[in-house]
């Protein structure tokens, strides 16, 4: 065996990847080659010393300084970065659903048959107009408190929706409602301005 092969086997030895036969081969070579033997001894000493080096202790105030430098609530849902987008989207979707409902009550022109009557009935039961009137009356009395209350309510609703992943469905419904209202508005304009709708001519 030549010294180059012995050097390669030495590396395998320190990689803990040497086979028994190879180790015997290397030992045999080193018995007759003082240069390789010395190399091996020095390298073994160096590597063993590295492996036995003590782990140093971090300074005492290490953890407290790191903890003071990081925002603890960085991963809390309510303070997530870019939280405007999910909240904003949920709020817009909620507003879209409400506006669509109210518009539908006011201008319901598409004939859904019994479903239309059912929806109309539900909205009337909810008496949204009355609710808004009451809110307006309250607002005139105590504007700031009401504002805070409304913001808190919206925040809670938004958080619950986001945490339960309902925001996605709400956004989809809101988008569909907006599209529906847009089409309806366009049809109504067509009807009143051109007297045309659904292939039939109506009087203005």
């Amino acid at each position, binding site marked *: 065996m030549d010294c180059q092969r012995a050097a390669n086997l030495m590396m395998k030895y320190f990689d803990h990847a040497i086979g028994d036969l190879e180790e015997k081969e290397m030992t045999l070579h080193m018995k007759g080659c003082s240069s390789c033997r010395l190399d091996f001894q020095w390298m073994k000493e160096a590597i063993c010393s590295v*492996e036995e080096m003590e782990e140093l202790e971090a300074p005492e105030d290490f953890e407290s300084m790191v903890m003071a430098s990081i925002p603890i609530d960085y991963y809390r849902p309510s303070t997530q970065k870019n939280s405007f987008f999910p909240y904003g989207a949920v709020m817009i979707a909620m507003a879209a659903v409400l506006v669509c409902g109210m518009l539908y009550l006011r201008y319901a022109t598409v004939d859904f048959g019994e479903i239309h009557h059912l929806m109309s009935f539900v909205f009337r039961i909810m008496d949204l107009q009355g609710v808004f009137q009451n809110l307006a009356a309250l607002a005139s009395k105590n504007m700031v408190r009401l504002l805070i209350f409304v913001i808190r309510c919206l925040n809670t609703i938004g958080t619950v929706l986001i945490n339960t992943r309902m925001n996605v469905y709400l956004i989809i419904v809101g988008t569909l409602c907006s599209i529906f209202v847009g089409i309806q508005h366009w049809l109504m304009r067509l009807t009143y301005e051109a007297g045309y709708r659904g292939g039939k001519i109506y009087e203005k």
Partner: protein
Amino acid sequence: MTLTDQELIERILQGEGELFEELMGRYKNGVYSLCFRMLGNGEDAKDMAQETFIKSYHALGKYSREYKFSTWLFKIATNLCIDEHRKRKAKLMPLDEQIHMPYDTASAETMYFHQSNKDEIERAIGELSQEYKALILLYHKEGFSYQQICDMLQLPMSKVKNRLHRARHMLKDRLKEIKEEESKWTAKELQI
């Protein structure tokens, strides 16, 4: 019950940021030791180790569970140390000169005991270049595998192996030189 690293990370990501302290407690000495040996002084090591944890906290959302947390953390620490060293190009004083200042006043006996193998190897490592130092420490001190080191340093396996083999030779030669120098020096002092 002790939580695993993965469980702790899950909970931190769910908003329990205070648990990061526990996670840090597990690796702070390892990271600090690596930074100390890479940079060669306590103050820089402390700054880099803290920077490592701050950076890892902010990037925890991007941590991939296919790797061990320690591998990911040491990757950040190693890269930060190499970058820092490149930036500063600091002239690092050999480690034993900082910790143990000249031995002029010491007796021959104390000198003998103080010149332990530990100091010599620290000095030899301190004199290696950053890339070689990182490989020696990660493989032989921290016990990472070749594959983990490849992932950490983003180097191909062949390069990591070649560099580690070269680093071992350099370390061996340097240790040999230091020991020979010191034995000559000690003999001289004893004659006086």
